C-alpha cells in the first residue's frame, strides 16, 4: 500500500483503502494489479476480432512470428477491424438506449448539419442510418474489406452515435447535485444506489422515505447520475470509488440496477450487505424495512466522514442554460469522462481544470471528472453526464462561437459508447483528446488513415501510447 497516493488524490479514499487493505478486502485496485500486464496483443489491436472460430489469431508486433491470420488477414486489417468492432458496439449501445431513433435516416439539427454533411462526404455517402449498423456487422462477418473501408465505416458509426443523440434531444430544467463523503456523515439508514435504476422506483423510494426520522433514511448514489425529482440523487463518490466506500461498511443496503459491476456484488456478499436488485420488483416499503433491519444489526463503524465534505453543483441540461454559462467566454475547454484505474483517481480532472483556469480557459465538465471538480470546489460548468459535451458543442455551433472551443478531453472512457462518441466528435471537425490508450498502436497505417480521414473533416483525435499525463493533455489543448 506504499503506492496508495498513486491510486487516488482523495485523502479520505486513501484512508479507506488502507482500512480495506488491513481487513484483507480485495477491491478493484487489487484486481487491476493482478491483471497486469493486460493482454499485449489486444492492447495493440493485434488480436483478431472476426470470431471465425478458427482462431483466435494474433500477429507478432515485432515481426518475428505470425504476420497473418489463418485467413490471411494482415495487421492493418486486424487493427482496423477492431476499431470498427468497438465503434459498432458503441453505436449499438446508443441505439439500444434510443429505441426507434435509428429506424430512419438521421436528420441533423441546423448548427451541426453542415459539419455532419462535410464529415459524411469524407466518409462516403451523404447520410447515416441504422443501415450503417447492419453494414458494419456484414463487414465484420468475413475479413474482405480493406482497412481504409473499415476505418471509414468506423467514422460513420461515430457520426451515427452523435446523430442518434441528436434525434432524441430533449431540453430539461437544470438540476442540482451534491457529491462527497459528507453525505454519509451522521446517524442515518443509508441505502446505496448503483447501476441503471428505473426512475419510478427512485421516486417511490423517495416518497416512502420522506419525513422519516430517528434515524432518517438516505438514498445515495455510488457514482451514477440518477434523476430524482427536481435534483439528482446525492452522489457519495465517483464510480471508481464505489467499492472503496462499500468496504467501509457504512452502507446498510444496496439497491442494484442493470450495469452494476460484479465486483460490487461480490464485495456486498463478503460484507454480508443486503443487495436488492431492481429487477426483483421489491416494494419500496420492503426495501426500507430491510435497510432498517440491517441498520439495527449494525456494528459500530470507524468511518465518520466530516459533514463539510460536500461539493455542490448545478447541472445544465437545457441548451439555454449551457448557453448562459458559455456566453461571453472566449476560451473554453470541455473536460470530462469516467474514472479509470490507469490514472490516479481524480488526478487528471483536478489538475487539468486548475491549469486550464490558470490559462484563462473556462471549463465545463461531465461524468466522474465533474464530480471530482465539485469535490474540490472548482468553479466549472456541469454538463449532462449522458450527453457529455454535445450540448455545449451544439450551443457553440449555433452561436457561431466554435472557434472559442479549444478542445474536448475525455479523461477516461467507461465503455465503447464513449469511445464511439469521441470518434464522432472528432469526425465533426472538433479537436478531441483521449487520455486512455486506444488499441490502435499495432498498425501505423490504420492510425494514419484515421488521422487523414478526420483531418479532412477538420477534426483531430489525439490519443497516446501510454496513460496521458496532464502536461501532454494541456499541450494538446493549448498549444497544438
Amino acid at each position: 500500500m506504499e503506492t496508495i497516493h498513486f491510486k487516488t488524490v482523495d485523502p479520505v479514499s486513501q484512508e479507506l483503502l488502507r482500512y480495506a487493505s488491513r481487513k484483507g478486502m480485495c477491491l478493484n485496485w487489487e484486481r487491476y494489479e493482478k491483471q497486469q500486464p493486460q493482454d499485449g496483443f489486444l492492447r495493440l489491436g493485434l488480436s483478431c476480432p472476426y470470431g471465425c472460430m478458427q482462431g483466435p489469431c494474433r500477429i507478432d508486433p515485432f515481426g518475428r512470428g505470425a504476420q497473418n491470420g489463418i485467413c490471411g488477414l494482415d495487421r492493418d486489417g486486424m487493427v482496423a477491424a477492431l476499431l470498427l468492432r468497438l465503434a459498432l458496439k458503441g453505436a449499438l449501445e446508443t441505439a439500444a438506449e434510443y429505441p426507434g431513433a435509428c429506424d430512419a435516416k438521421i436528420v441533423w439539427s441546423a448548427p451541426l448539419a453542415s459539419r455532419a454533411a462535410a464529415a459524411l462526404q469524407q466518409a462516403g455517402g451523404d447520410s447515416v442510418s441504422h443501415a450503417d449498423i447492419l453494414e458494419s456487422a456484414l463487414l465484420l462477418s468475413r475479413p474482405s474489406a480493406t482497412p481504409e473501408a473499415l476505418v471509414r465505416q468506423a467514422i460513420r458509426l461515430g457520426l451515427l452515435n452523435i446523430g442518434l443523440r441528436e434525434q432524441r434531444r430533449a431540453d430539461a430544467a437544470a438540476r442540482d447535485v451534491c457529491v462527497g463523503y459528507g453525505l454519509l456523515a451522521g446517524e442515518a439508514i443509508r441505502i446505496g444506489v448503483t447501476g441503471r435504476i428505473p426512475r419510478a422506483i427512485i421516486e417511490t423510494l423517495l416518497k416512502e422515505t420522506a419525513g422519516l426520522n430517528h434515524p432518517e433514511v438516505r438514498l445515495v448514489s455510488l457514482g451514477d447520475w440518477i434523476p430524482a425529482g427536481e435534483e439528482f440523487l446525492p452522489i457519495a463518490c465517483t464510480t471508481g470509488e464505489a467499492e472503496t466506500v462499500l468496504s467501509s461498511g457504512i452502507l446498510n443496503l444496496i439497491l442494484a440496477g442493470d450495469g452494476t459491476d460484479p465486483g460490487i456484488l461480490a464485495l456486498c456478499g463478503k460484507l454480508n450487505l443486503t443487495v436488492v436488485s431492481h429487477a426483483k420488483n421489491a416494494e419500496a416499503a420492503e426495501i426500507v424495512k430491510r435497510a432498517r433491519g440491517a441498520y439495527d444489526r449494525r456494528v459500530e463503524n470507524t468511518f465518520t466522514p466530516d459533514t463539510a465534505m460536500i461539493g455542490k453543483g448545478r447541472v445544465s441540461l437545457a441548451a439555454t442554460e449551457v448557453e448562459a454559462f458559455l456566453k461571453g467566454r472566449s476560451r473554453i475547454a470541455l473536460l470530462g469522462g469516467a474514472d479509470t484505474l490507469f490514472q490516479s483517481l481524480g488526478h487528471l480532472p483536478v489538475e487539468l481544470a486548475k491549469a486550464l483556469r490558470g490559462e484563462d480557459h473556462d471549463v465545463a465538465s461531465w461524468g466522474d471528472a465533474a464530480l471530482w471538480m465539485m469535490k474540490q470546489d472548482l468553479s466549472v460548468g456541469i454538463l449532462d453526464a449522458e450527453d457529455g459535451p454535445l450540448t455545449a458543442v451544439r450551443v457553440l455551433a449555433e452561436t457561431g462561437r466554435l472557434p472559442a472551443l479549444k478542445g474536448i478531453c475525455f479523461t477516461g472512457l467507461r465503455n465503447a459508447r464513449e469511445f464511439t462518441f469521441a470518434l464522432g466528435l472528432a469526425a465533426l471537425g472538433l479537436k478531441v483528446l483521449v487520455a486512455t490508450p486506444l488499441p490502435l498502436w499495432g498498425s501505423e497505417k490504420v492510425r494514419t488513415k484515421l488521422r487523414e480521414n478526420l483531418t479532412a473533416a477538420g477534426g483531430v483525435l489525439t490519443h497516446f501510447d501510454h496513460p496521458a499525463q496532464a502536461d501532454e493533455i494541456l499541450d494538446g489543448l493549448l498549444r497544438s
Partner: protein
Amino acid sequence: MKVIGVHMDRCTGCKTCELYCGAERGSEKKTLLAAVQETPPPQPRVRVEGGLDGAFPLQCRHCLQAPCIDACLTGALRRDEKSGMVIIREDLCIGCWTCTAFCPYGVIYPSPKRKIALKCDRCLYMEKPVCVDVCPTKALEVVELEGIEDLLRERRLQTLNVMLANGGEGIRLLDFERSE
C-alpha cells in the same frame, strides 16, 4: 545459481513473455505500445514454441558446458562469474553468429540490423526477469539450481500420485516386468 524454470502444465502459449521481453529488453522506451513503433523492431530473447498439444517458452538455458562459449570467436560470450549466467558482451560481438549455429536450443538470435547476436541474460541487472514477472499463469519461475532437487522430488511425488489415482497402472507394469 538461479535459472528460469518452466511449469509446462501452466503455459497457455499466450506469448505475453515474448511481447514484454521485446518491450523491456529490446526497445528504448520500454513500454509495449511505444516499442512496436520503433525501428528496427525490438527483438525478444524468449520464444514460445509449441502447438495444439502444448506450448513452451524457450530462452537461454545457461548450459554449464555451453557450446556457444566455445564457439565464440571473439570471446564476446562468457560466463558471468558472480551469477553463473552466460552473457554476451555486445562491444566484442562481430555478428558472425557462429554461436547461433552451435546453440542446441536455438535460443541465440541473430540481429542483422544491430550486427550482433542476442540472447537471454535472465535480466541480470533487474530484480526479476521480465518474462517471469509478466507471465499471467505463473508458468515461469526463477529457481535456485541448488534447490532443484526439492522441485524434482515434488514432481516425482505428483507423478506417483497420478499413477496411483489411475489404478496403479504404471506400478503394476513394473511389478510385471520384475516377475518376468
